[in-house]
């Protein structure tokens, strides 16, 4: 049967591996903290820490110059999604101040086939994503907020990730939260 597996798409599998692992993590966290809110926090935190490291990889792979405005940042984030999640969210709903925008995820590889049980309606399953964004932006001296406006899992039409620019940071290395 080895042969058979060879020809099954190992890239797909390894991407599965991530989403499965992530799922197990979420489930474990739910066991640990019954309250979904706490779980959301945890996920965001984990995302943040990942972000801190991920940005290096991103900059290394795509030798990008410093962004000059937030639109630029948005594009970078978009391309990061393409790079790391294999999806290209659309950028919309810019605020007047161009300091706030939405990413619309038509598909979410993290939450494929997920159906939330009733007692977890408040769970933000993919909350790792905003965390990653916050973390990685912080590493390039941008303090930003990121959160889910809509979530497909909650029966919303789409999955909308909102990102808001807060302020520019002085060059200080942020420490990983715990």
């Amino acid at each position: 049967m080895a042969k058979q597996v060879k020809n099954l798409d190992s890239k797909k599998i390894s991407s599965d591996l991530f989403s499965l692992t992530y799922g197990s993590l979420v489930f474990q966290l739910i066991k640990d903290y019954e309250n979904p809110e706490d779980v959301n926090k945890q996920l965001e935190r984990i995302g943040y820490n990942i972000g801190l490291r991920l940005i290096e990889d991103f900059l290394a792979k795509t030798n990008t110059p410093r962004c000059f405005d937030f639109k630029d940042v948005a594009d970078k984030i978009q391309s990061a999604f393409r790079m790391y999640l294999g999806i290209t969210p659309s950028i919309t709903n810019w605020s007047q101040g161009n300091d706030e925008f939405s990413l619309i995820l038509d598909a979410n590889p993290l939450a494929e086939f997920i159906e939330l049980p009733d007692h977890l309606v408040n769970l933000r399953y993919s909350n790792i994503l905003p965390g990653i964004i916050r973390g990685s932006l912080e590493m390039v001296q941008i303090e930003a907020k990121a959160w889910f406006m809509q979530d497909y899992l909650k029966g919303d039409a789409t999955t909308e990730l909102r990102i808001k620019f807060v302020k520019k940071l002085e060059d200080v290395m942020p420490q990983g939260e715990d």
Partner: protein
Amino acid sequence: MELPTIIKMVPSVILSFHGLLMAFHGDICESYFNFFKCSARKLQHLIISLSNAAILKFKSILDKSEWDVVGCLQFRMSVLALVIVNSDNYPVFIKTRHDYDKSKMSAEENMNILYNMNATLDIIEERQGQNQNRDPYLGLLNQCESYKIYGLLSATRIKILLMVSTNVSVMFRDSEARSTLKQLYSSYIDVTTYNPFYCPGSEVQSKKLEELVKSVFGLTADYNR
């Protein structure tokens, strides 16, 4: 042929089969047929998740695709019961025609069918012992007066049983059962493995699976989400 209805009916086709869509406008160009020929298998899998009406509508094209639509429909209409059993023989998913339409099947019949499905595990366990031919698809497992039972046994000892009535005097090809079972299996895997909230050994409760099964029973799956 007004498009919106079709779109409502079979979005999956629209999504994955531009060809069909075109064919729908009436102008059926040869190139698509060749396309179908090469992707007959793909098409078949797709069709499994189609509503009957859709299939009939597409018949003209599908016929060209070396794939017998009527056979599929007859097969679906004669599906009596479907059971997915986990490695401990616990039924994580059971559907019988009774669940959809009480008129088509009495409660007693329903029970007997369940017992028979359950009893088929004997045969599977027998097969499990044998080492030759370890293809997951087991083929026809048992047959008696009123029904046939086809089976699939995965490497992880997931068992899927499909009961088809033989009262309908049609001879569908084995491939129907095969593709249906394979399709069910992969869908089962998706809804159970991707979803961390599913506790192994408990009943599968998934709209997505329900939809597929509904269409397997030849009942139009409703695609409104």
